[in-house]
């Protein structure tokens, strides 16, 4: 029973890291694609791999450091951060699902990014490659920060750092390979559904670890995470449905 429960937490940690990584890499890939299309693939890949190196270094350095913190303090600290972060993702996913804020449009972002890069490289012709490489570096670094946080947060509490990191890296490689094959923005990926799932999972982890950090012994141990996730998911879906109604009425 306990093994099953631990398996549930471990797989949830890997799935959360994988799904979050898919969302963020799809967003970063749009900008890398704009850089590659406009300025050639060399600066695009150099910027991308440099940023991935920095992100990997963050996991390698910060992950074991967190392992030195007493477990209850770590659970409380990480739990609170996960709660804030997960609820933020869930709130946005609810609003997008209800049609209140627009969905991420990768095609539109690709056009905007291309136009911005064109304008910038025209203004500074001499350092065209540098600007392109830096744009790819920044995009991957900023989008990847959230993935690094998720990997460290969901991975550190139960010694799951490396499986979570592998889950994230696997998603990264898969998205980049698919992206390179299709050579266009990955606009058909259901980003908001993935964000909804990640928001639900991180909020559930947040409540669970904050509680453990405060000294709450949850009934059912780790298995209660699944109940928390189901409750957050149900609440999120009902809220999105509730918010969708006035918008539908107003547009009639």
């Amino acid at each position, binding site marked *: 029973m306990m093994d099953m429960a631990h398996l549930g937490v471990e797989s949830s940690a890997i799935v959360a890291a994988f799904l979050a990584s898919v969302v963020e890499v799809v967003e970063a890939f749009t900008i890398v694609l704009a850089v590659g299309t406009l300025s050639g693939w060399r600066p695009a890949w150099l910027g991308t791999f440099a940023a991935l190196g920095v992100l990997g270094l963050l996991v390698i350095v910060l992950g074991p450091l967190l392992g030195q913190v007493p477990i209850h303090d770590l659970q409380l600290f990480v739990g*609170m*951060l996960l*709660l*804030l*972060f997960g*609820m*933020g993702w*869930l*709130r*946005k996913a*609810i*609003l997008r699902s*209800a049609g*209140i*804020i627009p969905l991420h449009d990768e095609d539109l972002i690709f056009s905007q990014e291309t136009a911005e890069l064109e304008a910038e490289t025209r203004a500074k012709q001499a350092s065209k490659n540098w600007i392109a490489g*830096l744009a790819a*570096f*920044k995009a991957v*670094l*900023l989008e990847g*920060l*959230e993935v690094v*946080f998720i990997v460290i947060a969901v991975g550190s509490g139960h010694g799951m750092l490396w499986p979570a990191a592998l889950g994230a890296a696997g998603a990264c490689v898969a998205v980049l390979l698919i992206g390179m094959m299709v050579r266009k923005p990955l606009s058909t990926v259901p980003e908001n559904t993935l964000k909804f799932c990640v928001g639900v999972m991180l*909020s559930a982890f*947040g*409540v669970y670890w*904050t*509680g453990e950090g*405060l*000294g*709450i*012994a*949850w*009934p059912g141990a780790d298995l209660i995470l699944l109940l*928390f996730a189901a*409750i*957050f998911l149900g*609440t*999120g879906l009902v*809220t999105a449905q*509730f*918010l969708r109604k*006035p*918008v539908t009425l*107003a547009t009639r």
Partner: protein
Amino acid sequence: MKIIQDVLAELFSMFMTDARMSLSALILVGVVAALLNYAAITPVLAGAILLLGSLVIVVEAAVRDARKRAAAKGK
């Protein structure tokens, strides 16, 4: 330097997209900790307050944001 600013801004926005929601969540955790330590409530009740409080905060934040946007559209 600009890139460091952007990284710091990204880190801040990761946890503070909605300042009121984040502050409410931190207050909730503080209240649950105080109830556990000073009011001697059972851990299961404290856990239930933490879970329900989190749900209320996220729903309130979504509804408040939706109303704010609807009001801005109506102007």
